[in-house]
């Protein structure tokens, strides 16, 4: 089982790195999908098959597809890649990179400094337990997330509507 975990972890990291470095947004998106699939495999290795499935369906399936639609609508595709290259100059990279390295160092230091985590077995949690917990103590949270999703839909609908653009002679000039 560890082998699968390791392979999936490597794939996930490589794909994420590719996402971060790509200029063409479509390539980045596809790398992201593969990265999510790798993570789904990792979920599976951690004994959470239901979540792995969900990950695949919702993250990889729904959200990424939505992104693809938006990209197609704005037909960013190849044209914007040149602009992306110009935007991602080395100077922009330097400071965030340092920041992330420091943060990574701290996370590592944190994870490996606490001795209490023993290396006993990881227990598998099957889906029934999850369902019982979901509708047991977390029933309020479920309702809340339902409301959240509703808000998401209404918001997306309201914001997405194309209102007739008011072209104001001098107040607002849309830059080219």
């Amino acid at each position, binding site marked *: 089982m560890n082998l699968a975990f390791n392979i999936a972890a490597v794939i996930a990291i490589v794909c994420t790195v590719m996402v971060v470095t790509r200029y063409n947004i479509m390539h980045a998106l596809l790398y992201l999908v593969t990265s999510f699939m790798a993570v789904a495999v990792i979920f599976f290795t951690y004994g959470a098959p239901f979540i792995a499935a969900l990950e695949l369906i919702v993250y990889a399936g729904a959200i990424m597809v939505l992104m693809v639609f938006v990209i197609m609508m704005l037909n960013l595709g190849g044209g914007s890649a040149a602009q992306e290259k110009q935007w991602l100059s080395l100077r922009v990279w330097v*400071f965030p990179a340092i920041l992330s390295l420091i943060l990574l160092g701290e996370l590592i230091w944190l994870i490996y400094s606490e001795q209490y985590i023993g290396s006993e077995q990881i227990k598998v949690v099957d889906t029934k337990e999850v369902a019982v917990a979901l509708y047991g103590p977390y029933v309020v949270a479920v309702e809340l997330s339902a409301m959240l999703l509703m808000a998401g839909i209404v918001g997306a609908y309201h914001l997405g509507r194309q209102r007739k653009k008011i072209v104001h002679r001098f107040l607002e000039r849309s830059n080219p």
Partner: protein
Amino acid sequence: MTLWLIPALPYLGALILILAGSKLSKQMAGIIGCGSMGLSALWTGVTGIAFLSGGREPVRLQLWEWFDVAGWNPGVTLYFDSLSLVFTFVITFVGFLIHVYSTGYMARDEGFNRFFAYLNLFVGSMLMLVLADNLLLLYLGWEGVGLCSYLLIGFWYQDPANGAAARKAFIVTRIGDTAFAIGLFMLFQTLGTLNIGAILAEAGSALSGDGAASWPGGPAGATAIALLLVGGAVGKSAQIPLQTWLPDAMAGPTPVSALIHAATMVTAGVYLIARMHGIFELSPVSMQVVSLIGTITLLVAGCSALCQSDLKRVLAYSTISQIGYMFLALGLGAWSAAIFHFFTHAFFKALLFLGAGAIIESLHHEQNIFRMGGLRKELPVVFITFLIGSASLAALPLVTAGFFSKDQILWMAFAGEHGSLGLWIAASVGAFLTALYTFRMVFVTFWGETKTPVTHRPGKAMTIPLIILALFSLLAGFIEVPHNLGHITLFSSFLASVLPSPELITDSLLMEWMSQAAAALLTLGGIGLAYEYYVRNPQSLAGMKRNTGALQRFFHSGFGFDRLYDSLLIQPYTWLARVNRRDITDSLYTGLARFSIWLHRQSAQTQTGILRHYLLGAAIGALIILTISIFI
């Protein structure tokens, strides 16, 4: 005993004139003004006679208790003894004559009522000063007199120069008053009371004990208090450090100069020192300081008077010089001699000022003596009275009152216990200078050809006071004759009850004859020299003037004191005021406001509007919190 009437009448007159002044006619105002003075003089006479016949018992009358705080309750109480009798007599009698003279002199001035209101107020305050039983009430009179001299010097208020002179007088005297006030605080702290009687009793008992040591404040305390009192006296009596205001005070009308700057106010300092003689006797140092101030002043003022061209300024410097003589006498411990000189000086100096007023008015306000001349024939009465006054000032031997009083001071300077040869020489030189500048003035104004025509003869109201004063200038001396010439000691014995008599080291008749002969010779020499230069051959004078031009200017400016004070005090203060008009500490607070605005503007820069900067900020914040939570 209705002693309170003496000061109350002038105050009442002043009150009436102030309240109903604008409605009264000039004539009416004149009657009220002179009337109140006349009644007060009369009442002084009555009280004086009652006092003399009643065995010279000092009268004390408390009008009301001023205030009572923490056990200290100074009352508004009047005290009348022989010293205050002399002063009240002079103030009210000479004051009355000057009031009568003013009705004539100020007849055509539209501020007539206001003038008499101020004059009455002045006499009231002066009487309060002289009759005060405690030093606080004396201080009230002291400042009241300062106020009235300010009002009267600046009487013709249209001309800003008069205003400046009035303010100068008030401020310079105020400096002296501050020293006087600090002296009062020290006195109050050591004795717990400001009552003059109590203080003198305390000083007397200390003197009889073992001198200044048994004075509560110790010798240093006594000397400090004495010197502070001298500070106050020097301010008011225009002695050396604070004498610059008197020559400028001539900007006021002439009767004012006569009353205030000759007879009464300027001698307030002499009265204070004489009254508080107990403290001065405790500290010989302060006595020497007083005599030193006196001698320096009489010499400086003498020389300055020599080179003045304005008639009234000559008289002003001569007043400073004569008061210098009084201070010298006080310094020597010859208290009654000083008061006697004050007594005679009041008469002949008032006479000279009134005469000068008559001359100036008749020459249509011409004050420069070199543009006068030949007035012997034009104004005979004024000439004769002026001549008598000058003779008395110059101390013409045996005939004039001035001679007797000045000679007594010279004799005390020579033979007195604190006297010394140096003081006597200085005093004699002063006498010579006095004779010189007095008769220079007389010869220049009355001899020679008339340069400006006489337009107006002084009326009867002006000439009668002149004549009376002239008589007094001659006869007033005979009440105190030195014992080698008849030994009448009416005046000093009269004051003996209040002022102790000085001890003499040598009292041989021969020495006395010698000093009198020397004084007489000096005076006659001075007159002769003046005659030589100003009447017989003025050319020799022109020669001498050329090569001593600088000295002339130096004397003319009164030894440069004005310039000294101007550059030392006035310029820096006005410069500081001009520079710091907007109050430096204000910039402290406006600076605070500006700093907060700057701070706001700097922090506004961080709102760039670019999303990435905000994200970066959030990330950095998260990082910092993480590191803090881990490592600290």
